[in-house]
């Protein structure tokens, strides 16, 4: 038992939001890939991919707002309330975006289920004479 229900700081002015937002969970982090640094690069790539998606979303909102109102204003984007049609289009767009980024995983899955042959193997088979 520990009594950790109490805070050590008086106010939220004393906290470092950047560090605290990204802080790790207690306990050793499992790494899954053979090379820890490759996995770290994967983590960075996924974060970058997310940020690009966010930028795409913002652009889409901007375009929609421009079309709707004919003005450019940051506030209009913040306040933009997407229609059901817009939301559905964004949802589909995000799914396509993720499918592009994670294509290599999909292709690995297909190769597993299709038992693809190597080119050497195909070459052997196709260059056989009777």
């Amino acid at each position, binding site marked *: *038992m520990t009594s950790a229900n109490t805070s050590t700081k008086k106010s939220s002015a004393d906290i470092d939001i950047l560090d605290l937002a990204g802080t790790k969970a207690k306990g050793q982090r499992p790494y899954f*890939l053979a090379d820890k640094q490759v996995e770290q690069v994967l983590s960075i790539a996924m974060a970058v991919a997310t940020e690009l998606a*966010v930028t795409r979303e913002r652009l889409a909102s901007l375009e929609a707002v421009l079309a709707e109102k004919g003005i450019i204003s940051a506030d209009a984007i913040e306040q933009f309330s997407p229609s059901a049609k817009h939301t559905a289009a964004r949802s589909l767009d995000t799914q396509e975006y993720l499918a592009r980024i994670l294509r290599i995983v*999909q292709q690995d899955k297909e190769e597993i289920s299709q038992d693809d042959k190597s080119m050497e193997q195909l070459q052997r088979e196709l260059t056989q004479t009777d």
Partner: protein
Amino acid sequence: MSNVKTLPSWRALTQHGVMPQANHDEAARLNVLTHLNLHLSSRVIPGLRQVYEKHVHPAFVKEHGREPETRHEVRKVMMEDGYCQLWSALRRNTMEMRHQTGRAMVLRQADALSKKVEQLNKGCDTLQLDPTIEVPANISQVDIHCQPGCYYQEYYDQDVTVAASYDVGLFVTTAGLLGALSDGGGQAIANWLKAEHPNFKPKRILDLGCTVGHNAVPLAQAFPDAEVIAIDVATPCLRYAHARAKSLGVDNISFVQANVESLPQYADESFDLITSAMFWHEASHKMLPKALKTVQRLLKPEGLTIHLEQPQYHGKSVFEQFMRDWDTYNNNEPYWGPMHDLDLAEQLDKAGFDGSAMFEVGVVAKVDEKIFGKSAAGDSGEDFGRAPVWNAFGLWKK
């Protein structure tokens, strides 16, 4: 036309009175992570069965001359497979990104949130905090589901950020399927009670481990004349939960800081209904029997106790067990596997109930179908425990 199902936006969630505000990009980030979870469960996970059936299983049988007997044997060989490793790395990473996004969002508005919470809670005797309550080992030792600060951490005085971040993230980790107030679990229990036991009118209801109270609220609304008592040990969660319920106009719940291991403040046989949602898989083996004994002591004869959980592993293939068990080791859920191995009827028996009276039932919430679409029960890909068909177990006390 594409047959791909579209997801609602995080912004479709109900803005209850203490709901953290997401700016445009924060909402977009949460939406991408929600889609990423959907991508992993519907498009990547099905490949794992292929990997197992085509490569990993035959290799195991060849090497050992027998079938794998336990999920742990399956885990050992699966986690050496590249496809499984890549999926695992992506899934862990998605979880971590979800926490960072939620925390960044709530921390920047920490003061505003605390103020709103304090305002709503001021002078209410329905929030009963007890600073002498110790955080039990089952949550103080581990940041459950990789949530930094777990449920109880306060970074400054009157902090509610861990609770708010939990509320923000429920939509993301369940791929948007719990409804506009993320209360699908509580709704499912309430619906089931009304449909199957229309004459059951509980006057006093106890909810164990209520966290932000999202599943206690629909119960309180379904039984407006009942007194609901929602228990947790975590201060920030209780503060936030109480303010959240208040802002939704729900006044018949008391949020009480207490440890469910004993609850001496409540008299024997003083509750008609005792519930929990996704609680037992976070209970250590030391705490679980004590908490069940508490339930047994507090429940009235003819009363009902019912608990939402994932199904037990017993009777499932070792591969499915391995899939369901991933969180135990890789998402900081150390009790997940051990809990799903328990014979629940036997546990109820040991707690003094008649374990043979235990029932299991699948309950489904119909959450705001206009916004959230039909419940994904049945139509989603195989996702081993992420679909919102809730498995409930319980019994009527004789």
